[in-house]
């Protein structure tokens, strides 16, 4: 989504995709789509919890592409189970890519003049979600990480606004979070939320109205029904009105 947004809205951008696995058909197809949309697109395999490897890759990207302008962190893994059934060995697999990965990529780009550092988090971190105690904690961590990194930006130790966006769930598919494909019969009838329609881009597109101290934002999608409901909730909460 973001890759495509970049490819279609900037002229001659470079989009570097990083994934855990070696480049396969999916990577080739995705790169082809991005190239067609006008971007230079490359894929690199990297374990984001491997700090030395991350540094090496970032150095290589700087050498090949001149500079790194933005970092978008989207990785995550889930192992859903009620807390009473959780195997604590699996929680590390949930924590590590989110928490460690964010720290590793931040350290690897500490010297870069970034415009932005975006973390894809989950509403589970903001509200909690059944079966996702570990995932909720990891996403809560990311929200805190965004705040921590922004304080470093304030002190001149980092550049580029950090924002943690708490997304709702996309379609869940084997091997990862939803790749939304409305044409796939396997997805027919599944509940959908629609962050794919530019919501992420608009978080930035509307950044002038985002409060300056905002580190995290929750994104929820809905149709008129959801909108009306939130309006009703807002009416109930009309007072006290907090300072802006």
């Amino acid at each position: 989504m973001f890759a495509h947004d970049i490819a279609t809205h900037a002229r001659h951008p470079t989009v570097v995709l990083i994934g855990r696995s070696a480049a396969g058909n999916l990577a080739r197809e995705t790169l082809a789509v991005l190239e067609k949309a006008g971007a230079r697109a490359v894929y690199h395999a990297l374990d984001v919890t491997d700090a030395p490897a991350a540094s090496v890759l970032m150095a290589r990207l700087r050498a090949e592409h001149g500079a790194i302008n933005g970092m978008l962190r989207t990785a995550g893994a889930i192992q859903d189970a009620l807390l009473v059934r959780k195997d604590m060995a699996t929680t590390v697999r949930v924590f590590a890519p989110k928490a460690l990965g964010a720290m590793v990529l931040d350290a690897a780009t500490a010297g870069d003049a970034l415009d932005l550092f975006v973390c894809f988090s989950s509403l589970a971190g903001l509200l909690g979600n059944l079966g996702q105690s570990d995932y909720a904690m990891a996403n809560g961590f990311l929200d805190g990480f965004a705040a921590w990194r922004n304080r470093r930006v304030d002190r001149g130790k980092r550049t580029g606004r950090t924002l943690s966006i708490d997304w709702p769930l996309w379609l869940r598919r084997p091997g990862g979070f939803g790749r939304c494909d409305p044409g796939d019969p396997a997805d027919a009838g599944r509940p959908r939320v629609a962050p794919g329609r530019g919501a992420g881009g608009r978080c930035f597109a509307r950044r002038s109205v985002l409060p300056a101290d905002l580190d995290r934002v929750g994104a929820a999608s809905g149709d008129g029904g959801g909108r009306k409901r939130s309006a009703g909730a807002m009416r109930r909460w009309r007072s006290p009105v907090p300072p802006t």
Partner: protein
Amino acid sequence: MSPGPKGHVVVEEAPPSPRGDDDPSPQVVALSARTPKALSRMIRDLAARLAEEDDAFADLAFTLQTGREGYEERLAFVAASRGEALATLSALADERAAAVAVFRGRTRRGGAGAVLDGAEAVAHSLDDPALDDLARAWVEGLPVNWRGLHRGKTRRRVALPPYPLDPISHWLPAGRVPLIPVETKERVVTRAVPVVEDEDETLLLRPLWLDKPVSAEGVSPSSRLVLLCGLPAALAEGLQRALGDAPSRVIGAQSADPGDDFMDVATAVMTLLRDLLLGPEKLRPGLVQLVAPKTPCAALTAGLSGLAGTLAQETVSPVFQSIAIDPAVDAVVRARFLDEDSRCPKDRLIRHDGGHRQVRRLAELPSGPALSRPWRDGGCYVISGGLGGWGGCSPMTSPPMPGIRRWF
């Protein structure tokens, strides 16, 4: 049970089983439920059932005795007839319990003890206290061999009202995620219903901390456990001393970088809470306070609030509070803050900022004019995890959205 499609065909209704003996002897009516509230409803349901149907009273007592699992809240009494049982149940439903002789109490789960044999009681008349002994034993949680009571008689199970489940909502209603506007008062008054022209109507929310003093009349749960997470050792010790009798545990220490010990503390907290939830119910506190330092980054606090929100959906008891405390405040004052918070169990996410007590709400961000995107021409953007879904995903053509069913 195997997954996959299942089919059922009704060929013919089963013939009614023969009515049991019309046994005029007195019977023990034994009821149990998980909660006092459910027991009260069970009494009302059974009274209504007795008033309507004409099953053999002995069959009814037999069904209650042998066809039901024994829960903690128990009630038992001896009745000579269906009419007498109905009178007793009606009186109980009217909460005139003092006027009738029943045994009532709360057992411990799995209470061990001698098995009382119903056969010994069977030969005695109503005046004999043996049936009363059985009723009392049942209420005290002793295992009773009810079948012995009916040895040599023909009994059948009869249809009785189902267990009155306490309804618990597991949905995420809008009311539990109160949204408040961050806009100015004028704006809210003039536009109470925000009109949003976004084509995809994405709701942007931000967490907001609002001052909320403790409510004076609050009642704290019977017991609580305080988990002091990621606090500097000296601070944690001082707080533990100040908490006095309230049980507390210290988990992890604080370090400068948020990533360093987050995973250790998070795993330790989860392990402790999991074991608590798996342990005996009677050892479970009514309230667990997850306390972490209020720091600029608040990564641990944010993580714990995600955990508290999750556990609120996974379990009814205990109640979980995530509390961020100000490290600069004196330990005794901090302990008093925690005491006060425990009397407001409805506040789940709390922050103490100096002398201010704040709770977290979600505020909707106002919609603004669309501006240009932040992508530079010729810029280089690194998207990690991009292939897993987010980054590599192509834009969707507007899919049908039947309202917010689940948000995540």
